[in-house]
């Protein structure tokens, strides 16, 4: 395992990337991105079995699908820092003629992205399809997916959740980013999700809950535990309790930064809380 402090350096640099990307174009979704930074850094740098380079078919390597595409800043930063494309390209986020669209897409040929997402609720179905493809190909690698908690309000998820359990898609690990917030407010006020663990379990999934969803150690342990539970006839769900805006004090404990960029002063403050580690792009 990479030393946790090495992962932590990537986390801090990724936070800086996220903040600078959304600040530059005065748009994007920093809150959810910051909340999932530790998860995606750990997944790509410690947990997934990845091949060098990128090809769409992704045979004999683990695959990841981002369903809540609005947290593209963290996805792009993690992909770039992992070497899928030059980190300098983060400068083009949301600009005209960029491969780094507001929401991720394959359409501009950005390495690391295998499906477009942003219109919510579609990613789990795609991940299931990729997982079924791996089984058909005799490929024993795994498929990971990430979903927002508010996103579970989309009905397609429940079609997918039902399908994955009913058809024993047990090479799939789907993580729910339970930050409790959505654009209009707390999920429990907008449309209560109820007991997610019980909901997934009653549909037939093997479920892990992680209370410390912004702890690298807790995340790595949970993902390793989830991996050990694959291949046993059930899809695996990780319910990750995260803090939206994690790592920037004024962006935490609120839904206000779901889709809002920081001002110049706020950026300076936020970056001050996260000193450069691996070098800004």
């Amino acid at each position: 395992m990479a030393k946790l402090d090495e992962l932590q350096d990537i986390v801090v640099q990724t936070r800086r990337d996220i903040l600078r990307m959304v600040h530059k174009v005065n748009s994007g979704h920093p809150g959810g991105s910051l909340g999932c930074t530790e998860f995606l850094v750990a997944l790509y740098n410690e947990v997934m079995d990845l091949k060098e380079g990128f090809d769409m078919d992704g045979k004999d390597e683990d695959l990841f699908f981002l369903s809540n595409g609005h947290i593209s800043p963290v996805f792009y930063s993690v992909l770039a820092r992992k070497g899928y494309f030059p980190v300098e390209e983060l400068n083009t986020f949301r600009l005209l003629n960029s491969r780094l669209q507001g929401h991720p897409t394959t359409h501009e040929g950005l390495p690391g992205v295998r499906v477009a997402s942003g219109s919510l609720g579609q990613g789990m179905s795609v991940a299931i399809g990729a997982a079924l493809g791996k089984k058909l190909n005799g490929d024993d690698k795994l498929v990971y997916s990430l979903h927002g908690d508010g996103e579970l309000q989309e009905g397609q998820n429940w079609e997918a959740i039902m399908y994955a359990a009913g058809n024993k898609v047990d090479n799939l690990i789907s993580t729910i980013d339970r930050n409790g917030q959505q654009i209009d407010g707390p999920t429990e006020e907008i449309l209560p999700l109820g007991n997610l663990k019980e909901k997934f379990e009653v549909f037939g999934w093997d479920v892990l809950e992680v209370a410390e969803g912004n702890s690298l150690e807790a995340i790595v342990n949970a993902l390793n535990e989830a991996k050990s539970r694959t291949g046993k006839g059930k899809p695996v769900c990780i319910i990750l309790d995260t803090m939206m805006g994690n790592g920037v004090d004024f962006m935490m404990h609120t839904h206000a930064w779901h889709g809002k960029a920081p001002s110049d002063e706020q950026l300076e403050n936020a970056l001050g809380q996260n000193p450069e580690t691996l070098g800004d792009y």
Partner: protein
Amino acid sequence: MTKYIDQGKNDTRSGYGDAMTELGRTNPNVVALCADLIGSLKIQPFIDENPERFFQVGIAEANMMGIAAGLTIGGKIPFASTFANFATGRVYDQIRQSIAYSDKNVKICASHAGVTLGEDGATHQILEDIGMMKMLPGMTVINPCDYNQTKAATLAIADHVGPVYLRFGRPKVANFTPVDQKFEIGKAVMLSEGTDVTIVATGHLVWEALIAAEKLEEQGISAEVINFHTIKPFDEEALLKSVKKTGCVVSAEEHNFLGGLGESVARTLTVHNPTPQEFVATQDTFGESGTPEQLMEKYGLNNKAIEKAVLKVLKRK
């Protein structure tokens, strides 16, 4: 005019099912998905021979489109099939984002299109699907006319890389195209040459166009009949070459006049060679229950309607 013989009525969906059986034997990458309509889509033989390559998703079309998109990653060629209404309108955004915008090699295979679905009524009779699908960037849209052509089209789209919408129907209709005619995507088929009027037809209306042309011939009117089995990409050259000769056109389709074949014809003519055109299509309406024949009569989708439209457009030349 060139005469065509009905080799025996058959349904276009059986052309799909029989081609799937063939693809199951010849192309190991082809996989099939269905949303609780195996019998209607005629794919039981494929399932019997390739159970591991079939995915029953249940009554969950949105999930089916997403799973199909995911299956392409790793090299599979998914054929996702259900009724046309549930294969398009119900899942438009899933097709748009996960398939079309994501450049996924998914074949959306849609039976029971149009009013000829019959007694089930308007909830199931989609007349807007060609329009929805042809508006999606990168989507190929095909509406074959009979059993033989549907079978050939199904085989052809397996070799085409990119998303395809293949539209066919429920009732048994005349089967008249040559049994081994190669299907060329985007290439209209000249069925009968003529000099006075061009009839461009797609799907079930192609046979009706041939009947209309015979009746017109008895009146001394020479109609050219072209089968536009592919609506997108649209074979502009075939249309323009014909109207240059005839000077007027009737488009015929089992679809709303908004968004269908007729509109692609009109757009092409407007840009390149403005020409009088009449539309045989539904007039911005939903369907209703009835037999296919009754519905085609009531909604003006048969050879009588085509004949009438020809007589009208000839006066506008």
